[in-house]
């Protein structure tokens, strides 16, 4: 069953992500894809994440398909103009890539080619509109396509953004532009996320909660001080501190598993998106502890 069908069937879905490497050695990446095969429902492939130049998302999506894992093509507007984006979408379509996650993309200044010209000819809302249009057999200029695409398109949302309301206005624009599913930025406060879901449930979209494993109290503090749109509550930082250095990661895995279990058991959202960020081998452990394997 496709990711779209699984999501629409009402099953609690799990997605994870794979970050393409910088360079042509893909042994480790393939190991991670194989590790997650049959466990997750789909695998996001990041698009030059953090503006660091790597293998393109589309090629790795195709590799995922070759290894029997359904990919979600992450597509940012940072590096391609509207011609490049549409052309890549058509290319992805004929490579049988069905899911696309439309994002604006981190600024080039975040990455390793700071002198690059940032493009942003479009942004996430407009890119969703373009996907919708290609699905309807027309390009952005209104020209007919010989064969339409059939993408299942999603977007991202930041429930812990500060200020939140401008982000929610954008979220609603993304829904109107045709987003069918959302993967959220990492969330750590389930009660606050429940409040967000009360709002989000008013819209006909599927919501996957973002899960990022906390490795240590230091990492949690770093996130709170530096990463936009993520807030780790003090009680979790205390829990990690109390666990001590040796058991911090294990405690972080437990926290992730506990949150996933609660999200599923209380039917708070439609699934989770686990961002392991270099710890892909830990994803099955989290899923097991959450009772999903």
């Amino acid at each position, binding site marked *: 069953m496709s990711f779209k069908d699984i999501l629409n069937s009402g099953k609690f879905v799990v997605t994870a992500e794979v970050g393409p490497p910088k360079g042509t050695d893909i042994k480790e990446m393939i190991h991670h894809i194989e590790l997650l095969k049959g466990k997750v429902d789909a695998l996001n492939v990041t698009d030059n994440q953090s503006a660091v130049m790597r293998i393109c998302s589309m090629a790795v999506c195709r590799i995922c398909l070759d290894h029997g894992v359904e990919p979600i093509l992450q597509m940012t507007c*940072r590096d391609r103009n*509207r011609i490049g984006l549409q052309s890549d979408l058509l290319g992805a379509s004929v490579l049988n890539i069905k899911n696309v996650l439309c*994002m*604006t993309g*981190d*600024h080039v*200044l*975040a990455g390793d080619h700071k002198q690059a010209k*940032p493009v*942003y*000819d*479009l*942004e*996430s*809302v*407009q890119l969703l*509109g373009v996907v919708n249009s290609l699905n309807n057999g027309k390009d*952005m200029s209104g020209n007919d396509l010989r064969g339409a695409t059939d993408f299942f398109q999603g977007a*991202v949302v*930041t429930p812990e*953004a*500060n*200020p939140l*309301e*401008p*982000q929610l*206005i*954008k979220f*609603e*624009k993304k829904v*109107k*532009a045709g987003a069918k599913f959302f993967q959220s*930025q990492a969330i750590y406060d389930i009660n606050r996320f429940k409040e967000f879901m009360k709002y989000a449930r008013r819209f006909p979209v599927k919501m996957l909660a973002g899960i990022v494993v906390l490795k240590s109290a230091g990492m949690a503090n770093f996130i709170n001080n530096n*990463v*936009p*749109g993520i807030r780790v509550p003090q009680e979790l930082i205390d829990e990690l501190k109390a666990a001590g250095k040796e058991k911090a990661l294990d405690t972080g895995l437990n926290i992730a598993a506990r949150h996933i279990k609660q999200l599923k058991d209380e039917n708070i959202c439609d699934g989770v998106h686990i961002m392991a960020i270099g710890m892909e081998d830990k994803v099955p452990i989290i899923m097991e502890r959450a009772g999903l394997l």
Partner: protein
Amino acid sequence: MIITKKRELQELMENLKNYKSFFLIGCSECASLCGTGNQEAIDSLTESLKAEGKEVTGGFVPKTGCQVLGTKVELKPFKEALDKSDCILVMSCGAGTQAAVEIFEDKPVYPTNDSLFLGNMTRFQMFDERCSLCGKCILDKTGGICPVTACPKGILNGPCGGCKDGKCEVSPDIKCAWVRIYERMKRLDKLQELCDTVLEAKDWSQNIKPRTLATRPEKKEEKKK
């Protein structure tokens, strides 16, 4: 106004090493407000050039250095000093430099400044970029704050995920353009309008360079006479 920044003397001298005598042209408009093309700037550069062993045959601050014909007329009384120089230095923006190139067909012309952006003066010699001259204004849709300019990504439909506590991911010194737009629209009680407006991708064909414009009335009748 056009914001200009003085080049470091070392970079300037690299261009000027093969010339001996210079005539300096400033501008009484933007470059004067920037302090890069006023009489003080001309005097200061004159001193620096002399210290490097160069000769300065004269200097002048025209009213509007980018106005080709007007500047040409204003420079007429300086013919002798201009003729004596073997190089013209323009202490305004790239437009001023190219006006001089048009006026002095047979003389080398070099810029002493880098032209940075179209800016507002917020305090004395402090400048902010507010307009990108994109060719199609959207300020009517964004509460009068330009996201094409104020957002490093120039995005048109709300903040990206990089906004932290109202600040931009590119720099904490930049307030998120879309938070500013949101706050202004809220103050004006126009949030619904903000929610309902989805801006389409910009038409960059309005921005094909070089752009030209004639706003004066056609004078075909007179020409016939």
